[in-house]
């Protein structure tokens, strides 16, 4: 017993050392540093398109790399691929399980994936020779719901689950290649780094973790949130991570200084953050909330510079196009809106 006590003491003292090391590099806060910069002007985005077609709550959406096609998943049991510019439905894919919670568009545009309470990630081939969209693979190994999935390429996909783990899959063989275990609560969301070498996960243990895709190791852990982390994303340069939580705040963590840089919160915001996406330059942070609105933050000054209101129910997902031209919000009111 004495040995466990000693080990635990060692762990605690290491944690103290780490906190001290982080404090030691706090020669300046971000606030001080940006004191001289002006707040970016008021940002007013308008709805340019409304994508109608889903019959129930939309839980997820993801842009394709061409910045025009996107895929959305709804509890009406459908996955819809939209040509968002014309608002036409390119594909309406009926799902085996209507309890879908996530969807993803492959960078190549050849496939989409989705999953949910069925604990599986289903991959659909959009470019089959006969023109029909069919299930290509069903990736089953998770013991909890599928909360998020993101393609690395046509060959690999990463999934996060309510079973507290993330998995890297080889799509061709349909097998799991690497397990990323370490979270103590449901993994809710994941984001892949711009260089595709690492990814981040946010979980219901209130922490975010950075994982190395190549060796499966957890490189860094970030805490500070007071409730579930529902949304996570990389800052465009890949050096920082942004999280959104049920504690009504978003936080920006820097990877190189290994700590939180800034918190985005306001006393008038009382609801949880459901989704987030940075603008192309990273100067703006768009975050969707339970109170039906989307708030736009100046990332450097941590001030609200705009609001997107127009949905009649919770905003459940948000995405900015790769070319930065527009953002899309999906809601429990069954509509997707394109803004800029």
């Amino acid at each position, binding site marked *: 017993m004495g040995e466990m006590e000693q080990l635990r003491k060692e762990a605690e003292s290491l944690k103290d050392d780490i906190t001290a090391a982080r404090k030691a*590099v706090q020669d300046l806060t971000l606030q001080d540093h940006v004191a001289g910069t002006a707040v970016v002007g008021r940002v007013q985005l308008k709805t340019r398109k409304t994508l109608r077609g889903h019959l129930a709550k939309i839980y997820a959406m993801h842009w394709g790399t061409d910045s025009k096609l996107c895929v959305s998943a709804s509890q009406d049991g459908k996955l819809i691929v939209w040509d968002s510019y014309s608002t036409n439905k390119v594909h309406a894919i009926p799902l085996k399980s209507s309890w879908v919670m996530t969807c993803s568009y492959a960078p190549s545009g050849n496939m989409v994936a989705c999953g949910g309470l069925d604990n599986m990630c289903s991959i659909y081939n959009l470019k089959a020779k006969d023109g029909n969209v069919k299930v290509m693979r069903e990736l089953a190994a998770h013991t909890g719901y599928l909360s998020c999935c993101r393609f690395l390429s046509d060959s690999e996909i990463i999934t996060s689950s309510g079973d507290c783990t993330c998995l890297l899959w080889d799509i061709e063989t349909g097998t799991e290649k690497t397990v990323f275990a370490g979270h103590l609560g449901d993994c809710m969301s994941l984001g892949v780094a711009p260089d595709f070498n690492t990814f981040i996960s946010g979980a219901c243990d209130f922490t975010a973790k950075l994982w190395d895709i190549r060796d499966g190791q957890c490189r860094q852990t970030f805490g500070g949130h007071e409730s579930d982390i529902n949304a996570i994303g990389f800052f465009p340069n890949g050096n920082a991570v942004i999280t959104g939580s049920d504690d009504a705040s978003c936080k920006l963590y820097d990877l190189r*200084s290994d700590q939180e840089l800034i918190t985005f919160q306001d006393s008038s915001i009382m609801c949880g953050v459901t989704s987030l996406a940075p603008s192309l330059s990273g100067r703006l942070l768009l975050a969707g909330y339970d109170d039906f609105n989307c708030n736009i933050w100046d990332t450097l000054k941590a001030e609200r510079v705009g609001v997107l209101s127009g949905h009649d129910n919770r905003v459940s997902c948000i995405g900015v196009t790769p070319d930065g031209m527009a953002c899309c919000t999906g809601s429990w009111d069954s509509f997707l809106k394109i803004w800029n």
Partner: protein
Amino acid sequence: MASQDQGAVGVADPDDDSPNMIAYRKIEDIITRLQDETEGVPVRTVKSFLSKIPSVVTGSDIIQWMMKNLNMDDPVEAVHIGSLIAAQGYMFPISDHVLTLKDDGTFYRFQAPYFWPSNCWEPENTDYAIYLCKRTMQNKTRLELADYEAENLARLQRAFARKWEFIFMQAEAQVKIDRKKDKTERKILDSQERAFWDVHRPVPGCVNTTEMDIRKCRRLKNPQRVKKSVYGIVDDTQTQSPVHTPSQQSSKDTREDVEKEILFLNTQLDRHCMKMSKVADTLMSYTEQYLDYDPFVAVPDPSNPWIGDDVTFWELEASKDPTQQRVKKWGFSLDEALKDPVGREQFLKFLESEFSSENLLFWLAVQDLKSRPLQEVPARAQEIWQEFLAEGAPNAINLDSHSYERTSQNLKDAGRYSFEDAQDHIYKLMKSDSYPRFLRSNAYQDLLLARKKPETEQGRRTSLEKFTRTVGKSLTSKRLTGLMQSS
């Protein structure tokens, strides 16, 4: 905000893990302040027609208070938050089932703490049936059922046909209890009870605020307990709804767990923490550099295709003729140049002119390898080795002996990441050496400054042609490369 504990383990309070509790606590703080005797809104009894309306406050009074006490300049924001609070049922319009806040003389009342959402009510249909039933038993206009309520009652009567006698008796009992109360108190309680049901059985078309994200459902407070009845009824015939048992997390820390944690913490400690000032600098300069390219901040040129239906922007992006804006971006970093297919092509062209294109070709081949299906990886890895690294390779790259050895070892069990070291080395070489020269080159400068150049013979050939050409490069150029690299 000062960062709190950022250790390796998250902190979760097992007693209060309902995701909505944080929001409820904030709302309840405001509600308590609103009802404060001295600092709150004026709640009073209003004389109307033939009777008195007890304990009400106007919507505008609430809005005014919120703007003053919650630091809001915009009444729209106060209405938004007020409606949020009303939708959750913490305050309600006395004459409407729809729970929103209006900035006018509409009368509102505050909800009794018994009915607060933070008590985690999940009222069963039996309770709702009892409620609707008892309303029909009392001859009061204010208790008349709305159309949708009458429909609900009819439906419940069909569904509970076999136990309707029980429900009827319960409703009668409730009516008896209610009759004993003071008239004014009853008015207030009746309205509060109605508001409770407006939250849990909302008007058709209204948002149901009790709907939970299904991912969070199974982590509700006390999911295993039998749902408590609003009217205190213990019903044995009530079936327990199936509950998802959360996957058991072994909470006991084994010695192995703690040792693993110590290992992790040691690596964390060893990592070099960059100074905040440097980090802040990078963030600022990145956003500054890209601000001109951010359509949400700077007006794009040509115009944003989403505004005005002019798709010229997208057509230009797809074309092989890059705009000056686009060419300028290639100069931000090697990554940017490589991300853009036209930038990549230009860089490759430049490298060919310097006889060092094998570096980029190797880098591209390794990138491609990483996205191949697993089954193709070993074969492809060997091909890459043969082309770029083996003795007498046609496109030999220059690697330091250490990386060379490591790569050679990796290939014994070839995988997607066998060439990571080598690729990293080559990337750094290109970044520090060829890339800056590319930016200074005439070819790049001409594009950047949009100087028109007469078409050269090389310019007319496609990238693909050049690629196949360079694969069969002669030994002469190898010597030239060697010469150039040593200079």
